[in-house]
């Protein structure tokens, strides 16, 4: 099957080198920004820790202090958030490297398909991490009067702030990842050549 389409030869059957399709640099830029977003979300949440010393009682003249720490490891939702964002940023990094250095890497045209599939999986994983962390953060911020769970953000405000920033960065990463996934899928759908019989599915 002789492929006659001009700019976007994508090495379908032979070892045609993966020539530059349109929008390659756009995709690369978006991937780099998404990598930065998810990596910063991971790092900010992983380093999120606050210690507070409260004076509980005073006996005579010596105050009894109670040291409370808020760490991200206390909450499984935040642990999952860190893991999911770490995976997403690793995926972004891998795709950036493949894009830059792997011009000859292709296997019967499956490279674009694999990239699109992995992008979709990264979107799903990142969205799961975001969902869990958002609602856990909301619980920490507002508490739950029905279950008699007190809010913790009034005591650990910088912990909550940093968690909020990590969440915002992660949301930016998630929206960019959806954009990347859409772009990867569009790249797959090159226009049909005119001399092909139209297969009605």
């Amino acid at each position, binding site marked *: 099957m002789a492929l006659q389409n001009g700019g976007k030869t994508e090495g379908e059957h032979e070892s045609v080198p993966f020539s530059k399709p349109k929008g390659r640099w756009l995709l690369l830029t978006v991937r780099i920004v998404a990598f930065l977003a998810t990596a910063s979300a991971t790092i900010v949440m992983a380093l999120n820790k606050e210690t507070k010393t409260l004076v509980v009682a005073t006996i005579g003249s010596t105050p009894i202090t109670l040291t409370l720490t808020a760490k991200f490891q206390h909450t499984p939702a935040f642990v999952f958030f860190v893991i999911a964002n770490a995976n997403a940023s690793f995926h972004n990094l891998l795709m950036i490297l493949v894009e830059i250095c792997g011009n000859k890497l292709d296997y019967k045209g499956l490279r674009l398909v694999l990239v699109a599939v992995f992008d979709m999986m990264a979107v799903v994983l990142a969205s799961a991490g975001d969902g869990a962390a958002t609602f856990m953060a909301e619980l920490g911020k507002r508490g739950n009067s029905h279950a008699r*769970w007190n809010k913790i953000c009034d005591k650990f405000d910088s912990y909550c702030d940093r968690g909020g920033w990590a969440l915002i960065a992660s949301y930016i990463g998630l929206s960019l990842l959806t954009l990347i996934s859409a772009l990867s899928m569009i790249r797959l759908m090159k226009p049909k050549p005119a001399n092909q019989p139209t297969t009605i599915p």
Partner: protein
Amino acid sequence: MEKNPKRILALLLRVLALGAAVSATIVMATSHERANFFTASFEAEYSDTPAFKYFVIVNAVVSAYSLIALFVPWGSLLRRLLVTLDLLVTMLLTSSISAALAIAQVGKKGNSHAGWLPICGQVPKYCDHVTGALAAGFAAVIIYTILLMFSVHSVLNDLLN
């Protein structure tokens, strides 16, 4: 047509996903228990937690979407749109199940660092009910992931052939 078994499989998957999403919505929305001990009455409902409300809303939206998507004609341009929408819907579903699981885990095991006591000891039937809804939601997520791969594959087959 040799494509018929694939179409039947895709249709079957979507019907299963519709069933899972509908059952997740209904089971979560009907979870309600009132427990009395001593003088305090403890009432647990799905609307107490925003995470469970989000779960119900997302699963209701996904059920409606699945129902509509059952009737999209094959080969039309809408099928391509369906792949994008399938990805969005899978994303929403995973975030909803993940959020509900996070809050349910706190409800079941509590969080000693934050001073949050588990509530499953006081309303065990509510907890079981919610567990059932979460299982249905998880099944919906898995089926939708398979369906997403299927949609991408079927659209690709049209383009690469």
